[in-house]
């Protein structure tokens, strides 16, 4: 225990640099996946066959490719096509795209859970499709969507560690680098695990809060 605390004091500052990158990757890909997911979901429920088929196809392709392969593709293949991304950019875009499929399905489920009578009422006072979405459907869907959205946030925080495979020096990679140069595997990876857990706890509490609010209706 003594030696663990000593190691912790020594390694924490380096690991904290990794934490900063972990947070950047998580927030960046969360924002991107939310935007893309919302676009896929709105295309899906648009009632325009071409849009909804495109969206369904995209979602299936994205779902069928492992995140790690998507990351490799963006980081190693895109330069061959003339698009060079930094590791951080590739990580955020890759995770953002990968998660957009799950976000889209979550949003769609939320939108479709709203009573059809709401859409008819909105139409009957002259609202068009977009106004109906913005003023009537989405505000109600948010409450349904938030608890699973919180879970996605937790999964994204943990999956940001996959960015280590394309050299983003986030928490997991920093840990691996320290471990391989000091051989203090136990101390280092225990620390890394504890740090992920520490970051997850606020999110877990947030999900619980969302669930409580959703059940209040």
């Amino acid at each position: 225990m003594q030696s663990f605390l000593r190691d912790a004091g020594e390694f924490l500052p380096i690991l904290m640099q990794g934490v900063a990158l972990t947070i950047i990757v998580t927030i960046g890909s969360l924002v991107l996946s939310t935007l893309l997911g919302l676009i896929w979901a709105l295309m899906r429920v648009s009632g325009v066959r071409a849009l909804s088929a495109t969206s369904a196809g995209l979602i299936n392709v994205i779902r069928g490719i492992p995140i790690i392969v998507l990351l490799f593709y963006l980081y190693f293949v895109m330069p061959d096509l003339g698009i060079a991304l930094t590791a951080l950019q590739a990580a955020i875009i890759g995770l953002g795209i990968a998660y957009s499929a799950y976000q889209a399905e979550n949003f769609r489920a939320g939108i479709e859970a709203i009573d059809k009578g709401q859409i008819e009422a909105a139409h009957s006072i002259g609202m068009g499709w977009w106004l109906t979405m913005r003023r009537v459907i989405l505000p109600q869907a948010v409450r349904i969507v938030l608890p699973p959205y919180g879970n996605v946030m937790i999964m994204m925080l943990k999956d940001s560690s996959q960015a280590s495979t394309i050299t983003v020096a986030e928490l997991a990679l920093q840990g691996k680098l320290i471990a391989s140069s000091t051989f203090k595997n136990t101390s280092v990876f225990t620390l890394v695990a504890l740090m992920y857990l520490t970051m997850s706890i606020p999110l877990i509490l947030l999900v619980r809060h969302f669930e409580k609010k959703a059940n209040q209706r």
Partner: protein
Amino acid sequence: MIKLDDVHKSFGHVEVLKGITASVQKGEVVCIIGPSGSGKSTILRCINGLESYDRGDILVEGARVDRNARAIVAIRTQVSMVFQRFNLFPHRTALENVIEGPIFVKKVPRAAAIERGRALLTQVGLADKAQVHPPQLSGGQQQRVAIARALAMEPKAILFDEPTSALDPELVGDVLSVMRKLADDGMTMVVVTHEMGFARDVADRVLFIDGGIIVEQGAAKAVLNQPQHPRTQDFLRRVLHPM
């Protein structure tokens, strides 16, 4: 003001409207009665463009109702609808429900919309419920908010789709009296209803629909008191004397 000419409508293989021809004059109150599944609600939903129809024409003030045309929005702002299950927006207060259309569809300035919204809530007897959300209101109160919401669009006509069918019996009266006042004020109304008393007292004309066709129509008292067609007679006997 509203004209239906040989309107046909099918859901899959089932033809629910088999050639409906009717018209509603300005200021007229027309009640549509008939057994469940006869196509009454479908007629209203076609007039408002919530359903498409397969054949024939529906004209509102001379403009053809086409669910997929851009002009449908203009028609819907002229012809409001009140639903059986109220369909209020649960995430907005009673007042917000009423001012939503004026502000976002008709672009009425917010302050003016609020003032008019409060006046409408007063008109339906709910001045004190402006800040209450629909789930905290009784069914009858919700339906009256829904009527205020329809009125807020300053429509030329209002379509009522079984407005009291989802209400507890003791709450029906409040809604009907609001509707009766509207009729007295000269509002053009088409009402699908099972309230024969309301139809007899308030309606100018009654259409009896069965099996997707208009079986009998005429002045309300004539149709309801001396129905000519055997199917109308049978229907009214069942409704008025269910035991």
